[in-house]
């Protein structure tokens, strides 16, 4: 299984005997679980010994949509973290999972997570100045968002570079979600259109940098098609 810790980042380890019904660790060694565990260095893979469950985040399992958002969060961490690197995003991951079970706004929480995690992982989108010319984004003309260029594009550069349209309200929402206290992101007023655009822009940005589609979001699309967000 894959562990993610503050000190050691992403780590692959095996938990022997965990599939047995008598295993005391089976309930704890589940996705999303916050653990304190003893990991012994192995020749090929490290071995998980004692496990203390700090939070199972069991309430995630009560709502399919929230569970899917949480899966997306783990998927992004797993895709961006490299074995052996420090887990700088660990407190952010923990805070995000707490907010998801506490019944906050799951969509905005996940958007805030994505923006902050991208920054921590070295993929921060440029939102303050034009990432093409380095000039101000200005108050007039249509802005663009281009993952290959690294973020927002001013109206002048946008004519030649291209990218998805970026409304100034959505840009302001992105800046707020990136910088405000994550516990306060639910206070942001975002219309359904703003939310859809935020999600689409960040999804394209993440998929461009990860170089693969996000599986959890594909499942979320299925859920939405069948009704109920």
């Amino acid at each position, binding site marked *: 299984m894959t562990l993610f810790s503050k000190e050691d980042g992403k780590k692959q380890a095996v938990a022997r005997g965990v599939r047995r*019904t*008598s295993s*005391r*660790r*089976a*309930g*704890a060694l*589940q*996705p*999303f679980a916050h653990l304190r565990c003893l990991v012994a260095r192995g020749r090929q893979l490290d071995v998980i010994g004692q496990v203390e*469950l700090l939070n*199972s985040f*069991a309430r995630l*399992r009560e*709502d*399919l949509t929230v*569970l*899917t958002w949480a*899966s*997306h969060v*783990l*998927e992004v961490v*797993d895709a961006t973290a490299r074995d052996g690197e420090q887990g700088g995003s660990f407190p952010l991951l923990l805070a995000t999972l707490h907010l998801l079970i506490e019944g906050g706004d799951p969509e905005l929480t996940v958007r805030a997570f994505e923006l902050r995690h991208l920054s921590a992982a070295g993929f921060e989108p440029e939102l303050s100045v034009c990432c093409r010319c380095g000039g101000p984004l200005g108050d007039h003309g249509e802005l663009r968002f281009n993952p290959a260029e690294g973020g927002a594009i001013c109206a002048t550069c946008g004519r030649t570079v291209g990218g998805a349209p970026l409304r100034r309200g959505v840009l302001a929402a992105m800046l707020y979600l990136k910088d405000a206290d994550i516990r306060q992101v639910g206070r942001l007023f975002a219309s359904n259109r703003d939310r859809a655009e935020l999600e689409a822009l960040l999804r394209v940005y993440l998929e461009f940098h990860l170089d693969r589609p996000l*599986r*959890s979001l*594909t*499942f*979320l699309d*299925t*859920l939405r098609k*069948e009704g*109920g967000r």
Partner: protein
Amino acid sequence: MLPAGVTRLIRELTRLPGVGPRTAQRMVFFLLARPPADTRSLAEALVQARERTCECSVCCGLTEGDPCSLCSDPRRDPGSICVVEHPADVVAVERTREFNGRYHVLHGAISPLDGIGPEDIRLAQLLRRVKEGGCREVIVATNPSVEGETTAMYIARLLKPSEVQVTRPASGLPAGSDLEYADQVTLSRALQGRKEI
């Protein structure tokens, strides 16, 4: 060093779950030490099982005849369908002798993290069965793991518009176990699902 046929057999056996090169080698030497008739019998059993076994067109379980013996048994209640992840789970539920309905085998569970969606398991077949009518209750006996819970919630969501009751087996302490050694998740679920005595 070893004859080509032996090396090939070792390589083929290592493709089995839980079998590494050393275990495979031990198995091959054991088989070579047995009388040829034993090895032939094993080979025939393997080929026969693979060739004769198919998926039941009703429950998607494994069978030699279609529909399977469980689906064609008139004594079993067609109004109750127990949904399980794998064919082996049917055997586990049958051993309890507590269930007299029919089964549906999904051959997996939804796992957004692994990219396994509803279209990758036998969910469409379950929906078709429920829509055909005659079903009162669907018992979602998928594993109490995140993937199993995701699948259960998804099935409940899909079947909500129909009048079919969707239930989930209770989860709690295993019989004969010790409370002191129960993990926190199991124990908290057991407390949530407590019954008056």
